[in-house]
């Protein structure tokens, strides 16, 4: 029994090393993220807007529209990487993007949007992360495509990249718009 205790560090290290090996595999496709919610109705939510002058952000408002829901935070470096792509998407595709703030201070988000530009049609705050939990968010950034019937059609964990946008997101949008 005591003996096992001494082997424990080696065993833990073995598991960690296995993860590192997996991290090296060039064939791995990090964008392949299954979600239990694909093709299911998006969770409903009612959130406070970042800009107090605007109305509450309610999930029913999304109905009848194809929207992108993007979870983000100012402390998140990958979000910074993704940001210009979102701006491009919003402008070129005329696509409303709903931003939901993940574990962050409203002031920090305002500053962030002021410095980097604001691609979002609406920004909502999610103070107790309820909505993020309902969506099954792993971390930020994370992006969902929601169709006109309010169903989740696509989910992407991590920063969007030009390849995913061109090869998956845009064809999907074209299909949904038909």
């Amino acid at each position, binding site marked *: 029994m005591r003996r096992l205790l001494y082997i424990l560090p*080696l065993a833990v290290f073995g598991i960690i090393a296995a993860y590192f090996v997996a991290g090296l595999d060039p064939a791995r496709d990090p964008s392949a993220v299954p979600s239990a919610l694909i093709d299911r109705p998006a969770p409903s939510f009612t959130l406070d807007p970042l800009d107090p002058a605007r109305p509450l952000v309610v999930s029913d408002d999304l109905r009848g529209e194809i929207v992108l829901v993007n979870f983000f935070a100012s*402390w998140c470096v990958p979000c910074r990487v993704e940001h210009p792509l979102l701006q491009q998407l919003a402008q070129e595709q005329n696509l409303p993007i709903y931003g939901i703030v993940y*574990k962050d201070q409203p002031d920090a988000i305002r*500053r962030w949007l002021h410095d980097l530009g604001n691609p979002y049609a609406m920004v909502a705050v999610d103070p107790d992360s309820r909505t993020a939990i309902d969506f099954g968010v792993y971390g930020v950034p994370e992006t969902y495509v929601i169709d006109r019937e309010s169903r989740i059609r696509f989910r992407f964990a991590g920063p969007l990249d030009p390849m995913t946008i061109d090869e998956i997101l845009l064809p999907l949008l074209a299909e949904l718009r038909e």
Partner: protein
Amino acid sequence: MIVELGHYALVLALLVALVQASVPLVGAARREPAWMGVAVPASLLFLALILIAFLALMRAYIVSDFSVANVADNSHVLKPLLYKIAGVWGNHEGSLVLWVLMLAIFGAAVAMFGRNLPATLKARVLSVQAMIASGFLLFTLFASNPFARFDPAPAAGGDLNPLLQDPGLAFHPPLLYLGYVGFSMTFSFAVAALIEGRIDAAWARWVRPWTLAAWTALTAGIGLGSWWAYYELGWGGWWYWDPVENASFMPWLLGTALLHSALVAEKRDALKSWTVLLAILTFAMSLIGTFLVRSGILTSVHAFATDPTRGLFILLLLVIAIGGALALYAWRAPTLGAGGVFRPVSREGALLLNNLLLVTAAATVFLGTFYPLFLDALGLGTVSVGPPYYIATFVPLMLPLLLAMGVGPLLAWKRGDLAGALSRLVIAGVCALIAGIAVWWWKSDGPFMAGIGIALAVWIAGATLVEFFGRIGFGRITPRDTLMRLVHLPRGTFGMTLAHLGMAIAIVGMTGSSAWKEEHIAILEPGGSIAAGGYDYRLDAVTRIEGPNYWAYRAQISLLDGDEVVALLMPEKRFYRVQRMPTTEAAIRTTGLADLYAVLGDPNGEGGWTVRIYHEPLVPWIWGGLMIMVAGGLVSLTDRRLRVGAPASVRRVAEAG
């Protein structure tokens, strides 16, 4: 020619290291003094060869020899001399050479000053050290050769990343490496002890100075890096929980634990196998930190995958070094023996609690840092956890640690008297309570945690001073005797007192800056002003200036206290020509109680400029506290007991005297 000489020196060094890794080890097993003796000249020769290689590379940088690919990629003719030199270690290949150089210096130090080490232990330590060096040299020569040539040679060079062209960062990596490599020494001692199958107080006494030296260098390195991020990135923050920062913070946390557990191993002959494990883990964190962050596995998985040879090599090195050491540990540690027994309430108990909390804290940081990697490996995408995670997990672990930090030094070895210790600390407790309530009352709109942070800092400072004055008998015995006790106090005690006080001061700084920081952003035309923290910041003018390898906009901002100009702040926005990269140079004026921090942003095209002003209360205390901690480490290093080494020779000195 000299470049090739450097390259050959590296190859020769590898051969020497391979000899040093094997011959003394076999010699120690067979008790052959001649074989064991090989280790000493080999480590000196190794140092000489690495020094030649390092100087050859440095020369290539100084004379801007762009036929060397590494120089061409990272240097430029117009770069100031300091940054040409710093450029040697400002890139992957060169920094590996610096790492090996440090390793060689430490190895040679053991070879030269380790005369009173048992012969077998010394041979084994130097052998293990040479194994690490061989691994690094193989990696350098086969996967990251700094002496690779370019043909034809480019005319100008790609220049060093402008963010790195800064005095703070020029010295940050060498200090950090000194820390990491110092832990390689404790690792070597740990592995040698496992091979030896024996750990005694003399071993622990030998490990302590290396741990202390490594810890001191790492503390200074982290402080310098944090300071650099604070003034160079222009975001007004000093810690971002960034993977690169965490990579140096994890070995620091474990190294701090090791520093304390080695104390128990030395003084009480207890916690021996735990100390060995910590020594292995601390170096493991140094390795994982340097390599995985460098390889880009965390910031961008794809960058790592693009060079599979390098990635695999890194992993192989990690698995052999750490896996091997842990396997050895699993096999040999049970034979090391339990050592002295102690009650839970005792100095040992307090140090064990310190260890458990520090190790848990390091584990939470590890989990947060590698969470993206773990998720990614499971096919769940690359996402990151940020400050909210660390505030929720790391901070709660620190609170009991800081509370215990006040009590621990007052407990006796073996069996402590908690009630007695606490009764001596009543005054510290009362002061802490008053400070906490005062802060809470004075800044009632601020966060509640601010009061707790300040109270804890006062508690630690108070308890440390109570312990110190109690030790010199202040007020209990005659002033003359007190003075005598003060003079004869071991340097190690001074070191501990300083380091703990430094920690208290740094905590005040961290609390103040996270709780009461003010941030203002506005577009100002010349003559306009921003009010922050009781001062007015008036933009006077923005002019264009020329630097050696950049041009810049420089703003002149008058700092006004009422109508009186207190200071002129000159923040710059620089554009480096070769790398086409802008950097911000914040202007910081410190009052000792707060930093007044101004950053110049972009012009709006209509004569206005974005200006950001941060009022950073108590931030100077962070740097002050860290400097005091480093001073504590240095004072402790001069302790006579550490220089004398093994207890056997202490006796000899005593008899001679």
